[in-house]
């Protein structure tokens, strides 16, 4: 049961991202060309839903499934890593039209060439791990 709930949430996530076409290379291109509201609408409504949900959790002191207080993880402060890392990711996102979630979703859906993107992404992650101490954060 413990494992099942994560798989079920994942299934919903995979279906929604596919049916909203947020996994589509075309939709990402169209978004960066500002030729459709679709992707902006998805991201905005997801954020608004999240803001409302998190505020309710905080104000009503809602506990998690195990009865423990819910904690929102704070990102570490900084600037350089977010700007530069963000730009690197944005370049890749617009090139192959997939962020990390969709890489897996599309692979599961049977788009075989996505394995090359996943291979690259794992290598890129490794590269960061290797160079981390030399990079400005």
């Amino acid at each position, binding site marked *: 049961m413990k494992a099942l709930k994560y798989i079920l949430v994942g299934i*919903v996530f995979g279906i929604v991202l596919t049916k*909203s076409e947020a996994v589509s290379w075309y939709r990402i291109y169209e978004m960066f060309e500002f030729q459709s509201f679709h992707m902006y609408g998805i991201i905005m409504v997801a954020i608004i*839903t999240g803001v409302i949900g*998190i505020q309710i959790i905080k104000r009503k002191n809602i506990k998690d499934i195990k009865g423990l207080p819910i904690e*929102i993880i704070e990102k570490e402060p900084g600037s350089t890593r977010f*700007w530069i890392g*963000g730009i690197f990711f944005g370049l890749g996102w617009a090139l192959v039209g997939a962020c*990390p979630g969709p890489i897996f979703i599309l692979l599961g859906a049977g788009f075989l060439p996505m394995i090359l993107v996943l291979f690259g992404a*794992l290598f890129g992650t490794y590269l960061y791990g290797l160079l981390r101490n030399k990079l400005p954060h």
Partner: protein
Amino acid sequence: MDIIFQTWPWYVSGFLIGMVMLCLIYFGKTFGMSSNLRSLCAMTGLGKKVGFFDFDWKLQRWNLLVVLGAMLGGFIAVHFMSDASNVSINPKTIAQLAQLGIDAPNGKLLPNALFGNDVFQSPKMIFILIIGGVLIGFGTRYASGCTSGHAIYGLSSFQLPSLKAVIGFFIGGLIMTHFLLPLIF
């Protein structure tokens, strides 16, 4: 029933993505897909050589299960919930893509020019897909998050670092789409 097969509207999709994140928060976890790449690297035993991967990836097993579910979800949606009306993007976008030599969607999620099975015969396309992946893997770890962790989770909880990262995503995306893609294709 048609509603299920057609493209889901942005307000339904956005709401459901927000609910997925809230579910994970309720489970006592967080929302972030790119950290799974780090876990996958750690699983191979890289932690012995590179300190960044020296952590107990088993604590992240729940997130790998989310990914497994997402793969199943993608399979279900593509094979049982799709129809030819899908991916009806702006006709202007289609015309622009034609100039780059990229095929129109006609119901498919991905262009054959990038993801058709014959890309395995093109060294250029293999290179492009791998480089795209490297940029994604390197960039998300450097920025410590991607669209899910920063744009949705981070902005939903009003975190300034996430706003910087998301602006970065868009700067990178705009540079790629407007300046680099026309050079590549």
